[in-house]
């Protein structure tokens, strides 16, 4: 007989103690620290390098360097956190809280602030100018080098002809 209804003590204990049910949604969720919920970006720190785009296993992310946007489709993201790991400037983070269920899948785009954009544009222009200068310098150097080489080659050829004559 002791083998029948073995479960009764547990059941009765449950009956007379408080239910273990978490009363969500009446009571909000308590996330532990470091919970992986969704990706946040400090967009202004982003350098639009595209590392995150390349690292994302689901191809959720896209970055437009010119417009200064960073786009995530939260209905595609698997919260793996690899983008966070790969971002060179650590502007990405994965924080508690999930994307709400929706009727439609929509992606979210983050736009850098105009100041940052402007600064970036300036930087880019500066860089471009610099690059132009460098390129010019390089071209000049190259030309000089080539000329020197050509001269050397001509000299060498002349020597060779001479030695051949000796033989």
């Amino acid at each position, binding site marked *: 007989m002791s083998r029948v*209804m*073995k479960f*009764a003590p547990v059941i009765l204990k*449950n*009956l007379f103690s408080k*239910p*273990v049910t978490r009363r969500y949604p009446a009571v909000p969720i308590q996330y532990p620290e470091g919970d992986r919920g969704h990706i946040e970006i400090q967009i202004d720190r982003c350098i639009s390098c595209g590392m995150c785009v390349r690292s994302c296993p689901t191809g959720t992310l896209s970055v437009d360097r010119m417009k200064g946007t960073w786009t995530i489709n939260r209905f595609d993201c698997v919260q793996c956190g690899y983008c966070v790991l790969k971002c060179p400037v650590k502007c990405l983070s994965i924080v508690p809280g999930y994307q709400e269920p929706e009727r439609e899948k929509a992606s979210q785009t983050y736009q850098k602030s105009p100041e940052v954009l402007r600064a970036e544009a300036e930087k880019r222009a500066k860089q471009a100018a610099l690059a132009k200068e460098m390129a010019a310098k390089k071209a000049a150097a190259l030309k000089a080098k080539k000329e020197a080489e050509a001269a050397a080659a001509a000299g060498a050829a002349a020597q060779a002809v001479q030695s051949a004559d000796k033989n």
Partner: protein
Amino acid sequence: MNHTIFYAIGAVLYIVGAPFLGCLMDGAERKLSARMQGRIGPPLLQPWYDFVKLLNKQVVTVDRAQFFILTSYLVLMVMSGAMFFSGNDLLMTFFVLSTTGTFLYFAAIVPSSPYSSMAASRELIQEVCYEPAVLLLSVGFYLATGTFNARAVFSQNTSLVVFLPGFLASYLFAMIIKLRISPFDVSTSHHAHQELVQGVTTEMGARNLALFKLAEWYEMVFLYGVVAVFILNSSLVSVLAAILVDLVIFFCFVLIDNTNARVKWENMLGLSWAVTGLCSGVNLLILMMIR
């Protein structure tokens, strides 16, 4: 004459009130089960919400014949209950009850769908399990009171349970089977995840399922009503006692439901026949000897 009216009122009360009472009991059972499982559980009126929902859905069926068989099932169920509550012949009532079971079997087997059909066969096995106990109950009743008429209890000075403890035991056992309480919920379970999907109700959706639920409520009230027969006697206190006993049994059934694995039909058949044969049989023997 007074009495006839009294019993007619009993039948009418049953027909009108049983669905509500049954619904409440169903809800209470779900709530109590949930608490036993350590959770909050659905609201008390959940079965009612389900019922309303089912009636509001698109009427679907896999076989048109099912609807009319189910209606017959429901009507016969109401009828056997009404027969009982109007104090009619017990044995007759139980025979009609078994016909009711046959209609449920038909409803489940008519669409020729795999799970529904297998469940129907199991339903039939269940009938084989509980029918002897139920028929024997009326035999015991007859022996104790000299009539099959349920109203005879009111002319008894002592509660029948004194004479018929064995019958009560095997009837309660039969009731577990009939109410589809684990461990004997082999043909349909009140819980999800049955090996036979939803058992006999697999092919019942929307309105058909609502009919089935309604019939179940009627059945539940009827079956608990039969328990009262064991307790009631000519004194008024016995009414209270009957209600109390029903409540205790209700609680025990929920407890049993939550502490047992579903057995296989072979075990169910063996066990129920053994219990019926032993409890009712011995009780019957004693009754016949002292008569």
